[in-house]
């Protein structure tokens, strides 16, 4: 993993912990855990995540890219952001 990629994961993890984790009980979640299955982020939450990704990484998330394969886990988000930045 190069510096940019592992930094992405750390930033996203921090963003989720600060904004979605159901408060006092910080839940440990793995890189490939589904945000949806683990009830970490709900439907409005994914919209907020997208807005934050666009603002933080300067990317534009197309409608067609708003799919679980790109957004539903730390690993997925990391790979997606890396692809967008490399493009």
């Amino acid at each position, binding site marked *: 993993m190069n510096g940019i990629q592992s930094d992405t994961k750390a930033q996203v993890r921090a963003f989720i912990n*600060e*904004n*979605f*984790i*159901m*408060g*006092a*009980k910080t*839940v440990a979640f793995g890189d490939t855990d589904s945000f*949806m*299955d*683990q*009830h970490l*982020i*709900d*439907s*409005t*939450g*994914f919209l907020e995540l997208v807005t934050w990704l666009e603002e933080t990484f300067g990317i534009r998330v197309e*409608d*067609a890219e*708003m*799919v*679980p394969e790109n*957004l539903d886990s730390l690993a997925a988000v990391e790979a997606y952001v890396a692809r967008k930045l490399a493009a």
Partner: protein
Amino acid sequence: MLLHHDLEAWAGRNPDKSALVCGKVHHSYAEVDARARAVAALLQSRGVQRGDRVALYLDNGVDFVAGLYGALKIGAVFMPINPLTKEDKLAFMLGDARASALLTSGSLRAAWSGAVEQVPSVHTVVCTEVVADTGNREIVWPQGDAPTDFSLPPTIDQDLASIIYTSGSTGFPKGVMLTHLNMVSAGRSISTYLGMRESDRVLCALPLAFDYGLYQVLMSFRVGSTVVLERNFSFPMKVLETMAAERVTFFPGVPTMFAMLLGIKGLDAFDLSALRAITNTAAALSEKHIRELRDLFPQATLFSMYGLTECKRVTYLPPDQLGIRPTSVGRGMPNEEVWLVDEQGQRLPNGSTGELVIRGSNVMRGYWERPKETAERLKPGPIAGEMILYSGDLFRTDEEGWLYFVARRDDIIKSRGEKVSPREVENAIYAMEGVFEVAVVGVPDNVLGQAVKAFVTLKPGAELAERDVIRHCLARLESFMAPKYVEFVDALPKTDTGKIKKTGLG
């Protein structure tokens, strides 16, 4: 005629027909019925009896459906609970209903394990994954070879089928008691006016814990059609893909879903030509959205509807009226009578504004163990012994008797089509260190309908950020109840008697 007879009839009549499609997996009527029988046998072997309450705390999926029908088969009363519910509220509902059993999943353990500790009546937890050392209360969901025999209880249609909790102004939810007759009657009426048929394929991305979602399954099983069951509407593109691939014919939604859908570019890439009906309820669709939906799906009929958990559904607008009076929610559905009353309960003529009352077999039995609240909503009807439901909503009728929603009489906020009790949110925020006073109101929002906004005054020396308040609420409340906005103010407006005055806050 009991609620679960439809499933049993179709399992016999057309066993291999798809009842549910979850992801790519098809579950036939025979399979769903067999799964339900296994749940029934298991619950009965654990001592769950006729009339006992069985809570369902699960995401949308085949287990939820098997669970609810399994409970019904042994005469138990199913209580669907939104999987977004957090520990304290879950404990409250389980305790309030004195539930005997909880059907749930491993992914929700963080919320339910603490909750069931607080509720001694829950003697059985049926979970999709079992953790070894939690005592003999927890058992695993029945697998393929599980026993399916159970003894039939003498249930009649006057017995309770379900208790569905609904938020109120008091800060604590109330359990709406629904009999088999209530639910069968409502399902028959709605599926009739919608024209649902055996060949339909219904997309359900609504929570099954919400009666709008639940009835997609109940009604589909009534006519023998297929439900394409989605977890939620988090990824609209995926749902659209599924709708195209599965040739979905019915799409029930709430305004927030339609707003998200209409915001997507490239919708014409999806072949949605099979779609023949779209339904809306829970909140009003704007005229703009109605126009845009009709332009987008010219081959589909759009049904605007209104209802409440206390009687499932009240009105629908016949689609041929949509062009004439787009903001109306129509008239009463089949086998139901509705009218407007004034403050004294006197019936009002067309052209008036008043509270909507409902008379019909779909009207609830009352609120579980809440005689005072029940008496505020159910009052004697025209025939001795019958009760009619006061909706708590103000409507007006035009000269022809068509109904238009005016306002709620209570202060409940509707965000994403979900009820949010300001008192519940305020109670949660009051639990924070440093908070002095709180006032929660709804403010208009293009996508949500209303957004939840909290005005907070702090104690001297206290420091809190908006994010702290929102996170605190997310820990205690369903996500749709957490405020979108938090504004810190020096003081809240007060009435002469010193109570917080919300008018003007926004």
